[in-house]
């Protein structure tokens, strides 16, 4: 199934919503990464951020139909 990223949900296109989610995921990933690198904590945050970022990147790379 090809995802239609151009359909509008609320005020924005799905592609834009995923860009926003990606930004949040990047923040989680970075905050988690820097905490984990500093004192070994926030592993859950790091993994969640990395997973969400990867999913968003894979979705955003889909060209429009």
């Amino acid at each position: 199934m090809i995802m239609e990223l151009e359909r509008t949900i609320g005020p924005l296109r799905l592609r834009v919503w995923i860009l926003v989610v990606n930004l949040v995921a990047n923040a989680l990933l970075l905050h988690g990464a820097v905490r984990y690198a500093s004192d070994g904590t926030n592993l859950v945050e790091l993994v969640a951020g990395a997973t969400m970022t990867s999913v968003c990147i894979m979705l955003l790379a889909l060209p429009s139909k």
Partner: protein
Amino acid sequence: MTRAAVETERQRNEAVDLIRRYPLARTISAENLATEIATVERLAEAPPGIRFWGYLKLSGPGFIVAAETLGAGTLMSAMLAGANFGYRTLWIIWLAMGLGCFILAASARFTCQGGFRVVALQNRYHGYLVGSGLTALGVAFVGVVFNFGQYALATHLIESLTTLLGFGVPRTINWVFLVLFTSWLTLLYGRSGTRGVHYVEVFMKGCVLVMLISFGATLAVVGVSWREFFKGVFIPWLPRGAEGVTIFIASASAAIGVMDWLLFHYAGLARGWGARHETLARFDIVVGSFLPFVFVNFLVIAAFAETLHRLSIRPDTAQELAQALAPALGAYWSQILFYVGVLALPISTTVGMSIATAIAIHEAFGWEPDTSSLRWKITALLPQIGFLAVWYGRPLWLIILIGAFLSVTKNFAGWSFYLLLNDRRALGEMRCKSYVWNLGVVLEITLLNCLCITYILSRAGLWPE
């Protein structure tokens, strides 16, 4: 009518149409552009060697971008990387520039296939805040403020160089020559009745060549540890802990930015590039922008890795770094060559940033660029205010302010480019249909997101110093 005559007529009509798209292209004669279109079509079918040299001759905007990007900031960051970490961060250079090229390819698509002016389209689809504000005025502010750094470095270098040659010209005097020379070149771009665009492109190519020869010769003098070099190029390494994350984000996101995307797009329009030029535009991105940027950075990092890194010398500014390296080069002429190579960086950056500033201000306010107008001249020469760096240093508060502005807005301009590339309304059937291309663009904007987040987290005290 013969087939050849029909082809010639088609190429001429196409050229006339392309020239109409952007005022700076109107200095090109339809006959010349039609000949170029015919050459590009012929080169597309030619054997690789002939195609390479043919495209190299026709390239230009990519070299302008490389020469503009390779300035005091890039030099400082490459010198510091070499002096502090040796060869170990070389891999970041090609990775960062490689990712940046995906957005440059989007700029090329807008120029060649879209035929539109990107800021106007951003304004229409994403609002004036994103188009005129974050993209165009952002570029203009960068052009004006960051030119202080170019003047600070260039005037110091001229002073050192002329002292070495035995007739020291202090920076309080040599800035005048710098202003006159860079202003003349800037105002030559797109000037009616001349081949100004061509001359500026040739100058930028020359600067890139001087950098490569000069830093190549410097490296030949100091030597290269090839094992460490290839290890640095292909095996990723970062300092442990938060410092590594910070260095990666700062170095990777600094390689290429909104000014480069915009400059490549409009420099292409000024050349009258259309659908048949897209392969040439991509060649120009790789050979004109990517390779010079990567090679110059590699050469500078390697030179400092072999000298100051081994001696554990850590100067703070680009001027100090250059002065610290010069004696290590030994021979008189190698020092001169090194200074000339370094000098090519801020000079070409000043010219590139001044052209970008004029274009950006005109696009921000919807003004038609007319190089003979006073408005064009004033906007093109605005960055020349950087000469004040000779007396007052760099305006740190402004640099911090613009740095902050860039950090938190660059990604949104990137979002806008990505969305236009995938927008049927903007590009119709020529919108991006490649997963790999989109992936590259998305990775680049994710990197820019990280820059924005790092800045916000550090301001909020949530990022370790």
